[in-house]
C-alpha cells in the first residue's frame, strides 16, 4: 500500500493505482471545479480530455495518467 494526501487527508491505496483511482477511493471522485462552478471528474481516462487535472505536489497534472507515489500531495480545489 501507498500513503498519500488527498485534499489534506491521508489516504492509503494499492501500489500501482492511478491518482484518478485515489480521487474515488478517498473522495467523491471529482477532480476540479469548472469555469461555470460545476464539479468535474475524470472522463476519457487516457490523457486527452484534461478534466482530471489536479494539483500534484504543486504542479498541475493529469490524475488518470499519474501513478500514486508515497507522500504525494494531491489537491482538487487548487
Amino acid at each position, binding site marked *: 500500500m501507498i500513503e498519500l494526501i488527498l485534499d489534506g487527508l491521508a489516504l492509503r491505496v494499492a501500489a500501482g493505482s*492511478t491518482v484518478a*483511482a485515489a480521487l*474515488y477511493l478517498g473522495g467523491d471522485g471529482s477532480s476540479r471545479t469548472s469555469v461555470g462552478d*460545476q464539479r468535474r471528474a*475524470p*472522463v476519457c*481516462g487516457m490523457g*486527452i*480530455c*484534461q478534466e482530471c487535472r489536479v494539483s500534484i505536489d504543486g504542479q498541475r497534472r493529469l490524475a488518470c495518467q499519474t501513478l500514486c507515489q508515497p507522500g504525494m500531495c494531491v489537491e482538487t480545489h487548487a
Partner: protein
Amino acid sequence: MNEDFDLLIIGAGPAGMAAALAAAPSGLRIGVIDDNPLPGGQIWRDGVHAHLPANARRHRAALAAAENIRLFSATRVVAIAGPQQLLLEDDERAWRAHYAKLILCTGARELLLPFPGWTLPGVTGAGGLQALIKGGVPVAGERLVIAGSGPLLLASAASAKQAGAKVLRIAEQAPPAALAAFALQLPRWPSKLLQALQLFDASYRSNSHVLAALGEERLEAVRLQQNGKLVEIPCKRLACGFGLLPNTHLGQALGCRIAGQAIAVDQWQACSLSDHYAAGECTGFGGSELALIEGAIAGHSAIGAQAKARALWPQRQHWQAFADRLGRSFALDPRLKQLAAADTLVCRCEDVSYGEIAGCSGWVDAKLHSRCGMGACQGRICGGATQFLFDWPTPTPRPPLSPARIESLLQLAEPDEAG
C-alpha cells in the same frame, strides 16, 4: 540535453510495440515514447486492476528484453523542435530527441458527443471507464449503463463486470439490421466471432441511445431512447462513447498528409513526408489485430526490410476488411446531432454551450467569439464533437501539442542559447 535515435516510435500500444520489435533485429538505437504511465496503449492498458492477455504480456516482455529499445513512459511530445527533432517532457525534465526515422503510433481517442448532463461526475467515456477501472477506480457493486456505439461498448461492459459492477444496459445506436449483417460476416474472422460470443451481454440493445444524464451534483439516472421507447434507469455511472477518432495532431504538425480523419499512408505504412511512417489507429480505425500487423510492416519498412514487410500485406488486407465492415456497421445515426440542447455544454474546458456556437460560421469563428476550444484539451474533445455536429474541419494543432510546463519550452532555444 539531447538524445539521438535511429528510429523513434511515438506510442507504445500494439502498433508501437510491434513496430519496435520488428525493427529491433537491425540493432539500431530505437526509442519508444508513450504518455501513459505503462506501455500497452489503451487496449492493452496496464494497471492495478488490469488483466493483460497473453499476447500483450509477450509483447511487453520482448520490448523489455530488447537491449536496443528504450521505452519512455509518462512522456509527452510537446513540440517539434526542428527538422527530425521533437521536444519531449515528462514529470521531471524536458529534452530534445533527434531521429533519423519516425513511426507515428499515436492511436485513437473516443468520440464524445454532448448531450444534456454529460458533464456530471459519473459520466465517462466507454473506453474511458475501462481505462479508469484498470487504473484502480473502484466500481464493485455499482449500477452502471453503457451507451454509444461500437465494439468498445461490449469490451467496456466486460471490464466493468469483471470489476464487480452491475451492467444494467448496453445501448448501441446502430440499427439491428446493420448489426445482424455484421454478425453474419464474423465467421470470416473466427477469433473475433469467439470474442463477440464471450462478450455478448443480455442487456445489449440496438437502435438505442442516450438522451440525457440526470442528476444534480452527480449522475443519478440515465434517460435512454430504447428502440423507440423512453426509459429511465437509475444508476451511478454512465459510460458513453461514440466510436474512435484517430489522433493525428502530431502527424498534422509534422506536415504529414491527412486523408479523411486519419494520417495517410502507403503500402509500406510510409507517410507523405519522407522517413516518417504511421501505423495503427492513427491511420484509421482497425482494432488491435490490424494495429499489430501495420506496426510490424512500419517497423520492417523503416529499417529497409522490405521483403518482411511485404510478407505481411495479406494479413493486413484480411484485418483491414474486418475494420471496413465494422466501420460501416456502426456508422453514426445523424439524429445523434440533435442530442445537445441549447444550454448543453459542448466545450467542457471553457463551459461553452451548444447555443453559443450553433450560429458560428466555423471553428475559428466559434473559438474567437465564444472561447470554444480555447481550454486545456486544446479542442481534442469539442473539436471532435463539432466536426460531427457541424462538419467543421479539424482545428490546426499549435505548440505545445499538449499542455506543457513553460520551462520545458525553453528547450526550443537555439542549442547555444538553451543554457
